[in-house]
């Protein structure tokens, strides 16, 4: 989801919200935030569900804060509670974070669904969580004031205690009963940044210790009494169905409960094995003899797709943006033009925790446990599959071992599989697991893309005309997101980062083709920016080289005057990397790149050499402007880890290729993410000081690293790299 789209949505919304306060039977205070946002004009009205709690002050002083998004590494289970706890003046040592179940009240205030994605967690819930904290504090102050019969203005709060005149004090936990009956104020002022105790300070994650001692349970770790494990034999070509299934051998394995068929989202059929344990289910699935009918499905083939994509790239597509006059390109001589073709493969997300969902269906109710990025969408899909209303589906959000977009599926295909299995195994809890092979071969990849660019260079070395054609499957076509993300036949997620680029190019056009391919596709951390930033930042580098200008200076010259945040990060990056950039070791080179995505501006410089015929990244200096950095330690973590994740695109085995309709890779041996040796050795992160509203850090680290590295490689090998992954240097 692009930042520019989000901004357009915000201005169209009206807000109405109120806090409801109640006491719990066990004592303590529950504060609910009941939001009633009319959704996007074109989207259906959000259903109203009973309000749930955000803050629970327990009798023992523990403050349990509900996090309205999945925690899958990005740190929200710490940074969102920080916002609330700071405004509330809660004792941070007693704060406990929980991942909220699926419920209306936990929906993203901007998008109107419960979700994590688009790097929007802090950006969208910054105000929301602060308000919750401030109002909770106000209620507690009022309660103390009421009990002491003093004006609230004479009281103050600190670390879960209210202090009043005459040396009085009361713990939040002890005020809960009174506070439950205090009317919630409509508007409460928020703290000035100068009064922040937590916000803006390095704060260690709340979930560290249990993730280091094996005690934290991920979705895959759940165990319920009587639980079975399900593995699915998916059609090797998407959408196919079996002609026949020989399950005699499978059924004869002790511990196998059943073998049956379920429909798949691509209108095919899959075969399910349900057994008492994973290993049993795996043995059983391995000895299924399935004769598949491939006659009615199209088998994708990478070589054929490239041929088709290149053909399309040579013709104009649906127009995303067009200004000026591109016809001048036809007259430009070779000396003054760049003609470039770029190729990007399918990418798999492969989060470390394989996809899984645990579910039990009892006929009139279902209970689900899953690490989902799209809880309310999944809840609706499960209800639909089971013939229930969404409120009859209790959906627990589990801690997830990574996602990078894979756990945010508009079609909820994994949850629908789980629901179909639960329907068959009525009243038996079943854990559906996608083994790693299922994951690598199961589709929902970052689409393949071809780019074709023609640039006419002016006498001053700056681009005068720029014609850009992008070919790639549409990610949002056929989903509810299409209604506002596809304009004039262009999927905005395919052109973001190019269509809205910050460079001054007077004659500029971007158009796109979205072929239909029998391979499901999905957003992969930073979406369109994964390929568009690579193209932009390598071409700008090439233009700089042609102009005989330093790449940093060239960008300063080419950037639009109002690209203030980008200019700011370029300045900071230049300053912080000057020492090593000016003293590069023998055989080392520097590369730079800058990019804005999801509202956050990033610039980086990398120190690269070639070791064992691969790029060795010795250090990365990153400058970032993300507005207010709620937890700078998290921002640093996101950028250190995010650029390491971004190296995925360069890995020699970092591509999913298709032959005979299915992926040729099936595990980490054939599709290999970066190991430690492939990742940068050192990453120093510098945050531009800011009091602006926060923008995201989940995706912005990813787009800049690949172009920066190949820009450095050019200085070592003299070659420009326009095909990813890097197979050879």
């Amino acid at each position, binding site marked *: 989801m692009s930042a520019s789209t989000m901004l357009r949505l915000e201005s169209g919304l009206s807000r109405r919200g109120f806090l409801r306060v109640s006491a719990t039977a066990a004592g303590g205070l529950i504060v609910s935030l009941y939001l009633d946002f009319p959704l996007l004009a074109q989207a259906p009205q959000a259903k109203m569900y009973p309000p749930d709690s955000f803050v629970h002050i327990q009798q023992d002083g523990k403050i349990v804060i509900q996090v309205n998004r999945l925690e899958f590494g990005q740190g929200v289970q710490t940074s969102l509670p920080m916002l609330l706890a700071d405004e509330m003046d809660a004792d941070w040592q007693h704060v406990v974070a929980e991942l909220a179940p699926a419920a209306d009240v936990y929906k993203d205030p901007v998008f109107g669904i419960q979700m994590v994605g688009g790097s929007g967690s802090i950006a969208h819930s910054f105000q929301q969580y602060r308000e919750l904290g401030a109002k909770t504090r106000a209620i507690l102050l009022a309660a103390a004031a009421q009990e002491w019969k003093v004006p609230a203005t004479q009281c103050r709060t600190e670390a879960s205690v209210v202090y009043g005149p005459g040396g009085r004090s009361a713990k939040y936990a002890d005020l809960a009963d009174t506070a439950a009956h205090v009317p919630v104020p409509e508007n409460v002022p928020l703290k000035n940044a100068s009064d922040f105790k937590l916000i803006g300070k390095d704060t260690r994650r709340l979930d560290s210790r249990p993730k280091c001692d094996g005690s934290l349970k991920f979705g895959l770790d759940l165990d319920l009494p009587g639980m079975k494990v399900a593995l699915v034999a998916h059609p090797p070509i998407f959408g196919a169905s079996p002609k026949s299934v020989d399950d005699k051998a499978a059924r004869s394995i002790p511990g196998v409960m059943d073998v049956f068929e379920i429909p798949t989202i691509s209108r095919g059929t899959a075969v399910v094995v349900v057994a008492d344990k994973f290993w049993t289910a795996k043995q059983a699935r*391995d000895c299924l003899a399935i004769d598949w009918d491939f006659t009615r499905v199209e088998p994708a083939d990478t070589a054929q797709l490239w041929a088709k994509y290149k053909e399309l790239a040579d013709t104009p597509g649906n127009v995303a943006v067009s200004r000026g006059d591109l016809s001048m390109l036809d007259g430009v001589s070779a000396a003054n033009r760049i003609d470039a073709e770029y190729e990007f493969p399918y990418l798999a997300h492969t989060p470390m925790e394989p996809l899984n969902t645990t579910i039990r269906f009892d006929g009139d109710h279902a209970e689900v446990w899953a690490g989902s990025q799209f809880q309310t969408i999944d809840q609706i899909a499960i209800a639909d599959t089971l013939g229930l209303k969404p409120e009859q589906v209790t959906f627990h959000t589990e801690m997830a071992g990574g996602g990078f977009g894979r756990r945010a599926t508009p079609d909820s295909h994994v949850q629908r599989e789980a629901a179909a299995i639960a329907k068959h195994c009525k009243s038996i809890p079943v854990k559906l697991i996608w083994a790693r092979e299922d994951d690598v071969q199961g589709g929902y990849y970052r689409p393949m893309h071809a780019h074709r660019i023609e640039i006419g260079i002016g006498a001053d070395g700056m681009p005068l005309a720029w014609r850009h054609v992008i070919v790639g499957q549409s990610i949002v076509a056929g989903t509810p997101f299409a209604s506002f993300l596809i304009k004039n036949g262009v999927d905005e997620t395919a052109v973001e980062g190019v269509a809205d680029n910050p460079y001054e190019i007077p004659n500029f056009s971007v158009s796109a083709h979205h072929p239909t391919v029998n391979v499901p596709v999905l957003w992969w951390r930073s979406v369109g920016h994964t390929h568009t930033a690579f193209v932009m930042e390598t071409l700008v580098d090439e233009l700089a080289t042609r102009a005989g200008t330093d790449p940093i200076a060239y960008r300063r010259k080419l950037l639009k005057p109002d690209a203030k945040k980008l200019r700011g990060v370029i300045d900071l990056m230049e300053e912080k990397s000057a020492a090593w950039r000016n003293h590069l070791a023998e055989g080392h080179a520097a590369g730079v790149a800058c990019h804005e995505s999801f509202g956050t501006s990033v610039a980086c410089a990398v120190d690269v050499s070639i070791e064992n015929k691969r790029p060795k990244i010795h250090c990365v200096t990153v400058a970032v402007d993300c507005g207010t950095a709620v937890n700078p330690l998290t921002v640093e973590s996101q950028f250190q880890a995010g650029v390491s994740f971004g190296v995925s695109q360069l890995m020699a085995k970092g591509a999913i290729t298709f032959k005979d309709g299915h992926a040729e890779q099936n595990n980490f*041996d054939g599709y*290999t993410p970066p*190991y430690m*040796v492939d990742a940068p050795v050192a990453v120093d992160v510098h945050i531009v000081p800011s009091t602006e509203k926060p923008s995201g850090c989940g995706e912005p680290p990813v787009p800049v690293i690949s172009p920066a590295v190949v820009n450095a490689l050019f200085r070592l090998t003299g070659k420009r790299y326009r095909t990813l992954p890097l197979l050879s240097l």
Partner: protein
Amino acid sequence: MVYSDRAIRGSSAVLVLIAGLAWSSTFSPAQSTSQKGASTTREAGLAAWEQVYSVLTYPRCINCHTATNYPQQGDDRHRHLFNVVRGPGGKGVSGLNCATCHQSANADSTGVPGAYNWHLAPLSMKWQDTNDNILSSPEVCRSLTDRSKNGSLDGPGILRHHEQEPLVLWAFQPGRRRDATERSLPPLTHEQFVAATRTWVKAGMPCP
């Protein structure tokens, strides 16, 4: 179980060795009684060597006789995945030893080969160059017979190594891959390999 009682095998191997030594001393080249007899022995020895060479350079053997700081794997002898390295003693490094995955027997249920003391041959016993190209027959022969490189083994020692070393025996029963297919076998059986080695050793370990 692949390996029978080691003590019994050990003593029967000693018997074979004594017999072999007695046999070879009767026919050592320096003592050949006729010129024709000597050249047949050397020819036979060289022919036997080529048979031995064909096994040594087969993936099941040569994948651990690398000149680099990594092993190879597979019939295509690609660099062993997962960044495993030689380490001191050819046993990998702490955290990523050979024994981190390879146990003392094949794990057919998971597709990982295994044998007692799984480790790389020392660099002195490399049969490839640093570009992973297999060395020529003369080069491997010279390397194999160089006592400063081969762990101080003489002819009988080499024969014993080919007869008994668990990692050598493993090559002839290499187990199943992850996809349940059997790993491919060297061009000779173990018995044939030992016989060829014996012939070559009897001939005085001639090198081409």
